[in-house]
Protein backbone atom coordinates (compact mmCIF):
# COMPACT_ATOMS: atom_id res chain seq x y z
CA UNK A 1 0.00 0.00 0.00
CA UNK A 2 1.50 3.29 -1.03
CA UNK A 3 1.44 6.30 1.29
CA UNK A 4 0.03 8.44 -1.51
CA UNK A 5 -3.19 7.37 -3.22
CA UNK A 6 -2.61 6.71 -6.92
CA UNK A 7 -4.86 8.53 -9.37
CA UNK A 8 -7.51 6.45 -11.07
CA UNK A 9 -6.37 5.58 -14.57
CA UNK A 10 -9.47 7.31 -15.97
CA UNK A 11 -8.29 10.55 -14.35
CA UNK A 12 -5.21 10.59 -16.59
CA UNK A 13 -6.31 12.20 -19.83
CA UNK A 14 -3.12 13.66 -21.29
CA UNK A 15 -2.67 11.85 -24.64
CA UNK A 16 1.13 11.76 -24.40
CA UNK A 17 1.01 10.30 -20.89
CA UNK A 18 -1.50 7.69 -22.04
CA UNK A 19 0.81 6.77 -24.92
CA UNK A 20 3.74 6.44 -22.49
CA UNK A 21 1.61 4.23 -20.23
CA UNK A 22 0.76 2.05 -23.24
CA UNK A 23 4.45 1.77 -24.13
CA UNK A 24 5.28 0.82 -20.55
CA UNK A 25 2.55 -1.83 -20.52
CA UNK A 26 4.09 -3.40 -23.62
CA UNK A 27 7.50 -3.57 -21.94
CA UNK A 28 6.13 -4.50 -18.51
CA UNK A 29 8.20 -1.90 -16.63
CA UNK A 30 6.74 0.11 -15.04
CA UNK A 31 3.17 -1.18 -14.77
CA UNK A 32 0.24 1.22 -14.39
CA UNK A 33 0.79 1.92 -10.68
CA UNK A 34 3.90 4.07 -11.08
CA UNK A 35 2.42 6.48 -13.69
CA UNK A 36 -0.81 6.67 -11.66
CA UNK A 37 1.22 7.88 -8.67
CA UNK A 38 3.59 10.24 -10.46
CA UNK A 39 0.75 11.78 -12.50
CA UNK A 40 -0.07 13.66 -9.30
CA UNK A 41 2.89 15.80 -10.42
CA UNK A 42 1.99 16.01 -14.13
CA UNK A 43 4.83 18.34 -15.16
CA UNK A 44 7.35 15.81 -13.83
CA UNK A 45 5.46 12.68 -14.83
CA UNK A 46 5.88 12.79 -18.59
CA UNK A 47 9.63 13.51 -18.75
CA UNK A 48 10.27 10.89 -16.07
CA UNK A 49 8.24 8.24 -17.90
CA UNK A 50 10.02 9.14 -21.14
CA UNK A 51 13.43 8.90 -19.48
CA UNK A 52 12.63 5.57 -17.81
CA UNK A 53 11.38 4.00 -21.02
CA UNK A 54 14.00 5.46 -23.36
CA UNK A 55 16.96 4.65 -21.12
CA UNK A 56 15.68 1.09 -20.63
CA UNK A 57 14.54 0.11 -24.10
CA UNK A 58 16.72 2.13 -26.48
CA UNK A 59 20.46 2.44 -27.07
CA UNK A 60 23.41 0.17 -27.75
CA UNK A 61 23.61 -1.88 -24.57
CA UNK A 62 21.90 -5.29 -24.52
CA UNK A 63 18.43 -4.93 -23.02
CA UNK A 64 18.82 -8.20 -21.09
CA UNK A 65 21.88 -6.81 -19.31
CA UNK A 66 19.96 -3.63 -18.47
CA UNK A 67 17.14 -5.73 -17.04
CA UNK A 68 19.58 -7.58 -14.76
CA UNK A 69 21.07 -4.24 -13.66
CA UNK A 70 17.61 -2.76 -13.07
CA UNK A 71 16.62 -5.65 -10.78
CA UNK A 72 20.00 -5.54 -9.02
CA UNK A 73 19.55 -1.83 -8.28
CA UNK A 74 15.97 -2.33 -7.07
CA UNK A 75 17.20 -5.00 -4.67
CA UNK A 76 19.90 -2.61 -3.41
CA UNK A 77 17.20 -0.03 -2.88
CA UNK A 78 15.09 -2.63 -1.04
CA UNK A 79 12.23 -1.48 -3.23
CA UNK A 80 9.69 -4.24 -3.81
CA UNK A 81 7.62 -2.64 -6.55
CA UNK A 82 10.32 -2.27 -9.21
CA UNK A 83 12.19 -5.37 -8.00
CA UNK A 84 9.06 -7.43 -8.68
CA UNK A 85 8.45 -6.19 -12.23
CA UNK A 86 9.99 -7.97 -15.19
CA UNK A 87 10.66 -6.79 -18.72
CA UNK A 88 8.60 -8.75 -21.24
CA UNK A 89 11.05 -7.62 -23.91
CA UNK A 90 13.97 -9.19 -22.01
CA UNK A 91 11.98 -12.36 -21.37
CA UNK A 92 11.19 -12.58 -25.10
CA UNK A 93 14.94 -12.25 -25.74
CA UNK A 94 15.51 -15.31 -23.53
CA UNK A 95 16.36 -13.77 -20.16
CA UNK A 96 15.35 -16.15 -17.37
CA UNK A 97 14.77 -15.58 -13.66
CA UNK A 98 17.75 -17.81 -12.94
CA UNK A 99 19.99 -15.59 -15.10
CA UNK A 100 18.72 -12.48 -13.31
CA UNK A 101 19.62 -14.03 -9.94
CA UNK A 102 23.03 -15.08 -11.25
CA UNK A 103 23.62 -11.52 -12.50
CA UNK A 104 22.58 -10.04 -9.18
CA UNK A 105 24.39 -12.45 -6.90
CA UNK A 106 27.12 -14.39 -8.69
CA UNK A 107 28.32 -12.56 -11.79
CA UNK A 108 31.98 -12.86 -10.66
CA UNK A 109 31.66 -16.66 -10.67
CA UNK A 110 33.31 -17.80 -13.91
CA UNK A 111 31.02 -20.82 -13.99
CA UNK A 112 28.11 -18.42 -14.67
CA UNK A 113 29.82 -17.38 -17.91
CA UNK A 114 29.23 -13.65 -17.88
CA UNK A 115 31.51 -11.93 -20.40
CA UNK A 116 34.18 -9.52 -19.13
CA UNK A 117 32.14 -6.63 -20.57
CA UNK A 118 29.04 -7.80 -18.68
CA UNK A 119 31.05 -8.24 -15.48
CA UNK A 120 32.39 -4.69 -15.68
CA UNK A 121 28.91 -3.29 -16.34
CA UNK A 122 27.55 -5.22 -13.34
CA UNK A 123 30.49 -4.04 -11.19
CA UNK A 124 29.62 -0.50 -12.33
CA UNK A 125 26.07 -0.93 -11.00
CA UNK A 126 27.28 -2.71 -7.88
CA UNK A 127 29.78 -0.07 -6.89
CA UNK A 128 28.08 3.12 -8.05
CA UNK A 129 25.38 2.89 -5.40
CA UNK A 130 27.13 0.74 -2.79
CA UNK A 131 30.59 2.36 -2.76
CA UNK A 132 30.89 5.07 -5.39
CA UNK A 133 34.37 5.98 -4.13
CA UNK A 134 35.62 2.88 -5.98
CA UNK A 135 34.26 4.21 -9.28
CA UNK A 136 37.42 6.19 -9.96
CA UNK A 137 39.75 6.83 -12.90
CA UNK A 138 41.19 3.30 -12.74
CA UNK A 139 37.67 1.85 -12.73
CA UNK A 140 36.65 3.91 -15.77
CA UNK A 141 39.89 2.93 -17.55
CA UNK A 142 38.90 -0.71 -17.12
CA UNK A 143 35.30 -0.03 -18.12
CA UNK A 144 36.52 1.65 -21.33
CA UNK A 145 38.33 -1.53 -22.36
CA UNK A 146 34.92 -3.11 -22.91
CA UNK A 147 32.48 -0.25 -23.46
CA UNK A 148 32.58 2.94 -25.52
CA UNK A 149 32.15 6.26 -23.75
CA UNK A 150 28.69 6.48 -25.34
CA UNK A 151 27.76 3.12 -23.86
CA UNK A 152 29.14 4.13 -20.46
CA UNK A 153 26.98 7.26 -20.52
CA UNK A 154 24.03 5.11 -21.62
CA UNK A 155 24.57 2.72 -18.71
CA UNK A 156 25.11 5.54 -16.24
CA UNK A 157 22.07 7.51 -17.36
CA UNK A 158 19.94 4.37 -17.29
CA UNK A 159 21.04 3.62 -13.72
CA UNK A 160 20.48 7.25 -12.67
CA UNK A 161 16.86 7.21 -13.85
CA UNK A 162 15.92 3.79 -12.56
CA UNK A 163 17.72 3.88 -9.20
CA UNK A 164 16.38 7.38 -8.56
CA UNK A 165 12.81 6.32 -9.22
CA UNK A 166 13.25 3.14 -7.18
CA UNK A 167 14.27 5.31 -4.22
CA UNK A 168 11.31 7.61 -4.87
CA UNK A 169 8.91 4.64 -4.93
CA UNK A 170 10.47 3.27 -1.76
CA UNK A 171 9.84 6.61 -0.06
CA UNK A 172 6.27 6.70 -1.33
CA UNK A 173 5.55 3.31 0.15
CA UNK A 174 6.51 0.85 -2.58
CA UNK A 175 9.08 -0.74 -0.32
CA UNK A 176 9.26 -4.09 1.40
CA UNK A 177 11.46 -7.13 1.15
CA UNK A 178 12.91 -7.03 -2.33
CA UNK A 179 11.67 -9.75 -4.66
Amino acid at each position, binding site marked *: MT*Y*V*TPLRLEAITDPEMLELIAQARAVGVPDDLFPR*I*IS*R*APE*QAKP*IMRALLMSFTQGNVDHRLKEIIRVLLARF*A*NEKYFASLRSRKAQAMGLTEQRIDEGCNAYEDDAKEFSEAEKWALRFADL*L*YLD*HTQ*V*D*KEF*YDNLKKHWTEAQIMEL*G*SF*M*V*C*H*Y*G*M*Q*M*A*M*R*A*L*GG*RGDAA
Partner: protein
Amino acid sequence: MSTNPDAVDAAFFDTLRKHYSDDEIVELALFIGLNLGFHTFFGSLKFYPLFSPEGRLLTQAESEKFYGNAPSSLKTQAAK
Protein backbone atom coordinates in the same frame (compact mmCIF):
# COMPACT_ATOMS: atom_id res chain seq x y z
CA MET B 1 15.53 9.26 1.52
CA SER B 2 19.28 9.53 1.13
CA THR B 3 20.91 8.73 4.43
CA ASN B 4 18.14 6.82 6.22
CA PRO B 5 15.32 5.75 3.89
CA ASP B 6 13.83 3.48 6.56
CA ALA B 7 12.91 6.62 8.51
CA VAL B 8 10.55 7.68 5.70
CA ASP B 9 7.63 5.75 7.14
CA ALA B 10 3.92 6.26 7.78
CA ALA B 11 4.56 8.49 10.79
CA PHE B 12 6.94 10.61 8.74
CA PHE B 13 4.29 10.96 6.03
CA ASP B 14 1.68 12.01 8.58
CA THR B 15 3.99 14.85 9.63
CA LEU B 16 4.85 15.73 6.03
CA ARG B 17 1.13 16.01 5.20
CA LYS B 18 0.74 18.76 7.75
CA HIS B 19 2.83 20.94 5.45
CA TYR B 20 2.47 19.51 1.92
CA SER B 21 -0.33 18.11 -0.21
CA ASP B 22 -0.03 14.58 -1.62
CA ASP B 23 0.67 16.09 -5.05
CA GLU B 24 3.53 18.14 -3.62
CA ILE B 25 4.92 15.11 -1.78
CA VAL B 26 5.03 13.14 -5.03
CA GLU B 27 6.77 16.07 -6.73
CA LEU B 28 9.35 16.23 -3.94
CA ALA B 29 9.95 12.46 -3.97
CA LEU B 30 10.55 12.46 -7.74
CA PHE B 31 12.89 15.45 -7.52
CA ILE B 32 14.88 13.98 -4.63
CA GLY B 33 15.00 10.52 -6.25
CA LEU B 34 16.42 11.88 -9.49
CA ASN B 35 18.98 13.94 -7.61
CA LEU B 36 20.04 10.90 -5.57
CA GLY B 37 20.56 9.01 -8.80
CA PHE B 38 22.41 11.51 -10.89
CA HIS B 39 24.64 13.16 -8.31
CA THR B 40 26.22 9.80 -7.53
CA PHE B 41 26.94 9.02 -11.19
CA PHE B 42 27.96 12.51 -12.26
CA GLY B 43 30.12 12.83 -9.15
CA SER B 44 32.09 9.80 -10.29
CA LEU B 45 32.78 11.44 -13.67
CA LYS B 46 34.81 14.20 -12.02
CA PHE B 47 33.58 17.27 -13.81
CA TYR B 48 33.17 20.66 -12.25
CA PRO B 49 31.30 23.91 -12.96
CA LEU B 50 32.49 25.99 -15.91
CA PHE B 51 32.52 29.26 -13.97
CA SER B 52 33.93 30.52 -10.67
CA PRO B 53 31.52 32.00 -8.12
CA GLU B 54 32.45 35.42 -9.57
CA GLY B 55 31.55 34.33 -13.09
CA ARG B 56 35.07 33.75 -14.45
CA LEU B 57 35.47 30.95 -17.02
CA LEU B 58 37.62 28.19 -15.53
CA THR B 59 39.56 25.25 -16.85
CA GLN B 60 38.47 21.96 -15.29
CA ALA B 61 41.75 21.86 -13.31
CA GLU B 62 41.05 25.35 -11.94
CA SER B 63 37.44 24.50 -11.25
CA GLU B 64 38.43 21.38 -9.31
CA LYS B 65 40.45 23.64 -6.97
CA PHE B 66 37.33 25.77 -6.40
CA TYR B 67 34.78 23.03 -6.13
CA GLY B 68 36.69 19.76 -5.65
CA ASN B 69 36.35 19.83 -1.88
CA ALA B 70 32.59 20.25 -1.99
CA PRO B 71 30.73 17.66 0.11
CA SER B 72 31.59 14.21 -1.16
CA SER B 73 29.39 12.29 1.24
CA LEU B 74 25.91 13.07 2.41
CA LYS B 75 26.49 10.76 5.35
CA THR B 76 29.42 12.95 6.39
CA GLN B 77 27.18 15.98 6.16
CA ALA B 78 24.47 14.24 8.15
CA ALA B 79 26.99 13.28 10.83
CA LYS B 80 27.93 16.94 11.23
